[in-house]
């Protein structure tokens, strides 16, 4: 199954891009300080608000910082918030969804009601409001807030998956051998959810990046550290739009979009694996199909 997963070209491209960003987040600051020999806040007084040039590949901001350096370092700010919120959201989702689905009964009722409550809350509005309360919080607080509204969807899928896996013949069979509940959960049920959980994780991760960017853009996200959202926000605050300093606010937005696309690709790939009809709609295959089908009509 994992093999099929990695053989899917969409998954491969998506994961590749995602990994690239992850690498950027991990090594970015090092790269900027050692290779580019600068910092995202270093000021080049000779190039204030300059368009891309040989010295500054992506140009500079109005206060003379290198946009490329900012985007690279900002990857960490964005991706870390994304990943932290995704980890938290996934863990909460698992802690709520799996027991709820596996044990059933009153516990399930309670947890489901809890999940549904969160599910109907308009999450971004609430995130905004709460972030507003704790304005200017550290990045992990933002991640926590985002996670708090990201988990219910995941919990619901995990619950229904667990429920279906709990009733699947192989789990029932192991139960009828006398296998313990913990082992059933960890050895029989959970391994089947790696796909779902990883898709969920990726989705939550991007949702986290999105939310962080949106909050930063509104000026109520993290402050101090550089993230793609703060770059856009600063650009907006310093009239980059009015003055057409597109190189300042376009790259971080593209990065977010790219990351989002990568995740979407992985998820489509997973969809295709779980629903072969979708993968049959593969373009290459359809080309061959049409070529093969043509002579038949021509005759």
């Amino acid at each position, binding site marked *: 199954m994992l093999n099929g997963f990695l053989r899917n070209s969409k998954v491969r491209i998506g994961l590749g891009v995602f990994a690239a960003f992850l690498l950027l987040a991990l090594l970015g600051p090092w790269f900027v300080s050692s290779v580019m020999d600068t910092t995202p*806040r270093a000021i080049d*007084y000779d190039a*204030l608000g300059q368009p891309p040039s040989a010295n500054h590949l992506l140009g500079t901001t*109005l206060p003379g910082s290198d946009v490329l350096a900012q985007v690279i370092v900002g990857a960490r700010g964005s991706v870390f918030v994304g990943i932290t919120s995704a980890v938290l959201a996934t863990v909460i989702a698992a802690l709520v969804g799996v027991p709820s689905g596996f044990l059933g009964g009153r516990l399930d009722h309670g947890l489901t009601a809890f999940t549904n409550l969160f599910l109907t809350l308009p999450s971004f509005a609430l995130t905004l409001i709460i972030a507003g309360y704790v304005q*200017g919080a550290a990045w992990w607080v933002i991640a926590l807030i985002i996670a708090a509204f990201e988990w219910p969807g995941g919990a619901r899928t995990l619950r229904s998956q667990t429920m279906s896996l709990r009733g699947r013949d192989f789990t029932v069979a192991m139960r009828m051998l006398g296998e313990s509940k913990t082992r059933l959960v960890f050895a029989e049920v959970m391994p089947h959810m790696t796909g779902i959980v990883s898709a969920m994780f990726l989705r939550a991760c991007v949702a986290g990046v999105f939310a962080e960017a949106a909050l930063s853009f509104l*000026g109520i996200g993290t*402050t101090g550290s550089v993230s793609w959202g703060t770059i856009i926000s600063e650009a907006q605050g310093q*009239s980059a*739009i*009015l003055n057409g300093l597109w190189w300042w606010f376009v790259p971080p937005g593209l990065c977010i979009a790219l990351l989002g696309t990568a995740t979407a690709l992985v998820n489509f790939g997973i969809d295709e694996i779980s629903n072969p009809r979708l993968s049959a709609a593969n373009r290459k295959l359809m080309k061959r199909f049409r070529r093969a089908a043509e002579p038949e009509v021509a005759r």
Partner: protein
Amino acid sequence: VGCSTDKGTGAGGGSTGGKSAVDTLNMTASAAAPTFVKNWNRFSPADKKSPATNLLYEPLIRIDHLAGKKPEPWLAESFEWSPDGKTLTFKLRTDVKWSDGTPFTAKDVKFTFEAPKANPKLTQNSLGFKSIATPDDHTVVVSYDDVAYQKLASYGDERIVPQHIWSQQNLETWTNPDPIGTGPAKLTKFSPQQITFDWRDDYWGGKSKGVKHINIKPFADPQVGKAMMLNGQLDWSTMSWQDADKQFVAKNPATNHYWTYPTGGDEGLNFNVAKPPLDDVHVRRALYGAVDPEKLLKLNVTGQSPTNATGYDAKVYGDLLAPEYKDKPHTQDLAAAKAELAQASYKLDANGNLSKGGKSYPLTMKPVVEYSNWSAWGLGLAEQWRTGLGVNVKVVPTPEDQLWGQMAKGDYHIALDWQAGGNTPWAGYDGVLNSANGAPLGQEASTNYTRWQDKTTDDLLAKWRVTNDEAKQKEYAAALQKIVVDNVPFAPLFTAAWFIEVNSTRWTGWPDPASAEYVPHSLLGPETILTIQNLTPAK
């Protein structure tokens, strides 16, 4: 397009009616806000109120910001201190009428000043008087417990409202929907996106030279405001405009103007002297010495210039400024700064932190995240300290909502702030230096955020407060200036300024900084009226 005359009625079409005679001024009169609310109740405990109150209501006196903050008559013909400095007598103009025709009298003044005293839920004034008497309809006598020369300037901020209307209302909840004032403006139209005033024919100050209608426009954020200035939707606005020379003036130098008028004080750094390592004067001097304000300005060109080390602006205060500081804008002196740092009891460690006794004291610096110029300068400052002294200062842009609270409590090391500003020079220093305005770390200081505590300073301020003698005032001011320069409780960087942009395509007659008699700023009461009154349509 041909039907544009059908588009609206009344004065609305000002900016679009290309051919019609110019009689409407389009301006802003508020901080950035996307829409207006209707609330001209100046006592109402609301945060957001309707703009342009100062076109409707007027104060007794006008502060001449271009001449050392000298008080000038406005609704009051004259004002006079008793010899002991405890009684202030205003003689009111007799030709002033409210826009509903009722004459303006001392009753109105008394009401205005006393109303908030009766109800703590209303917005309070800062006049601090003991009692008010109105011997006749045009005389107001204000008594103080103590010598109160410095209070006079505050009357420039207190705009008088009509007693015969306001006393009928519950001032806590009333929104004053149909404002009646002494000012030249009469409300003709209100919509959340535009307020229109007409110039009163019976205004005591006289007719205007051309402006018949005034449109007050909101702008959601500075970008939008700038765009409106650029495309002629606005004639007059007051925003700090980064790089305005290039972005605005250069687009049409004949009509686009961007002016900065000094307010008298400065924008600079608050050093929290109660927190190590800033308790060491050498550290403060070193940090100040390493700053190059000239260079910082490049990061966010606002039209301001570097100021001297006292914080007082030379143009505004002239003689009050001791000659040794006058005309000496602060410049970077790395050698001296390094020497100071070497003298400090704190030593620089490998991480760029100052440390003493094995304990390291990493520094942070907090600019307001919303003020883009301060954010940019904050980063520039950190860069200069890093490259110049090797000191690492972490920049933590903080929302304005929080920063002032943190500063009041002393939860900061270095922060950008205004200093030495106020309606009098004394007030400028008293606010930031008087220990009475400070508080221990953790408690809320009212304005002395640097927590500068010094007996001599307090004594000097006290003496200055109670004297009306100019020579003495100068003497105290000079002594205080020396204290500031030597001890650097705060580090003045730039002249604080009023930012004004004008698009003179339609209106001319704007005061020029070179020859101005008043500051053409839309938030400065009588100055606003004077400015508008003297505008003439461009040919």
